């Protein structure tokens, strides 16, 4: 079994127009920038993207949105230091937004991966975001029913990975990545370091390989925050 491949463009080549794509990361931490840029090169359109945010500046998810690849975004916090890519298109009615509380977003994704079609949560009860959702009382307290989220693809970023698809993460870059790995039909991972099978301590593996389909090594990956400070734009504008 060897889930690792060399070519990042091959890794994302099958993602078609109209797919639902989960993209890991919280802001720039854990965001698979190189996979996103490879997807921009491939250029599928009309995607539904699930991410905590809506991109920042002109790289990563923001660049995908600038390339008009995203028709719907499911996220909790579509604001950032430079949210223009999303804001402009949202206010122009060009991109649909499903706003989900952050913890509910995480739990819906986990539920999608765990075969739980729906669950109840107190989060959002009595607010605009609960409108139209079934409600139920348990032990005298009101809750709303939330459905699971699944995707055709997940693009995630990990620290170490092996050919079985076993993964570890780096600090707070863990965030949504292990959850999205569970909830997508096909999970594509960029790892900072590809190691031989058996080298990662079985106790330390956060995502077991069963949740992973494809691993590509990207040494010294770019960090969204650094790219934005350097005012990088993807794809580079050639004049």
């Amino acid at each position, binding site marked *: 079994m060897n889930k690792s491949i060399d070519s990042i463009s091959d890794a994302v080549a099958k993602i078609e127009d109209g797919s639902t794509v989960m993209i890991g990361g919280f802001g720039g931490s854990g965001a698979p920038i190189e996979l996103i840029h490879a997807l921009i090169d491939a250029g599928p359109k009309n995607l539904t993207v699930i991410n905590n945010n809506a991109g920042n500046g002109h790289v990563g998810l923001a660049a995908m949105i600038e390339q008009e690849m995203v028709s719907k975004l499911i996220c909790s916090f579509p604001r950032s230091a430079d949210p223009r890519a999303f804001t402009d298109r949202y206010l122009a009615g060009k991109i649909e937004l499903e706003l989900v509380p952050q913890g509910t977003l995480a739990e819906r994704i986990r539920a999608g991966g*765990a075969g739980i079609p729906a669950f109840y949560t107190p989060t959002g009860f009595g607010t605009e975001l609960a409108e139209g959702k079934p409600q139920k009382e348990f032990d005298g307290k009101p809750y709303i029913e939330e459905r699971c989220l699944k995707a055709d693809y997940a693009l995630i970023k990990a620290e170490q990975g092996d050919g079985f698809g076993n993964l570890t993460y780096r600090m707070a870059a863990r965030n949504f990545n292990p959850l999205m790995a569970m909830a997508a039909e096909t999970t594509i991972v960029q790892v900072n370091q590809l190691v031989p099978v058996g080298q990662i301590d079985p106790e330390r593996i956060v995502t*077991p390989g069963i949740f992973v389909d494809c691993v590509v090594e990207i040494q010294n990956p770019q960090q969204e925050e650094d790219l934005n400070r350097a005012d990088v734009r993807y794809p580079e504008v050639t004049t």
Partner: protein
Amino acid sequence: MKQRLDEIKLSNAQIAWRAAQDLRDGAYVNLGIGFPEMIATFQPEGREVIYHTENGILGFGPSPREGEEDWDLINAGKKAVTLNSGASFFHHADSFAMVRGGHLDLAVLGAYQVAQNGDLANWSTGKGGVPAVGGAMDLVHGAKKVVVVTDHVTKNGDPKLVSECTLPLTGVGCINRIYTSLAVVDIEAQGFVLREKLDAISVDELQALTGAQLHLDGDINLLDAPKL
């Protein structure tokens, strides 16, 4: 008939061998406690299979030698196992997320009865005593394929492949294929479909030992297993 059946029928080891021939290379597989566990012994050469046990290991290997057991390294049957390279540990909620979430390619279970609509009864004889279910009701949901290994009939000669289960159900419409001591039967929209049978038994004889109609759909292949 009973005596003849006992002569021609496959042993449990042979049923397990037959089921093992269908293990796909690269598959993630959960083998139920007891009889199904035997399938790993017959895993065909050159195929890599990763075994999941619901108590929290992916990628475990065969039993250790006697005296070398580590009782923190056990399978769902509470037997000591070993670790293969690339194994991982996780808690029960994550383990059953793998099961329920559709991440396993195959789950293999034993059965008291399987109905023609895919219902399975394998956890309770309905006779009282202490009921115990373990992971059986979870395992029948989620795996891409759920199959059964079983004798074709009970010890009394009654069909185990039935029109409707009379014993308490484990799951509804959940079984895809049955490997028996006499045949391989798929469950499809029309019900039981006979895929393979022993050479020594006729379709009519097999039908007589089966509690619902055996549909024929194309060739019936020869069910054959080496002496084990």
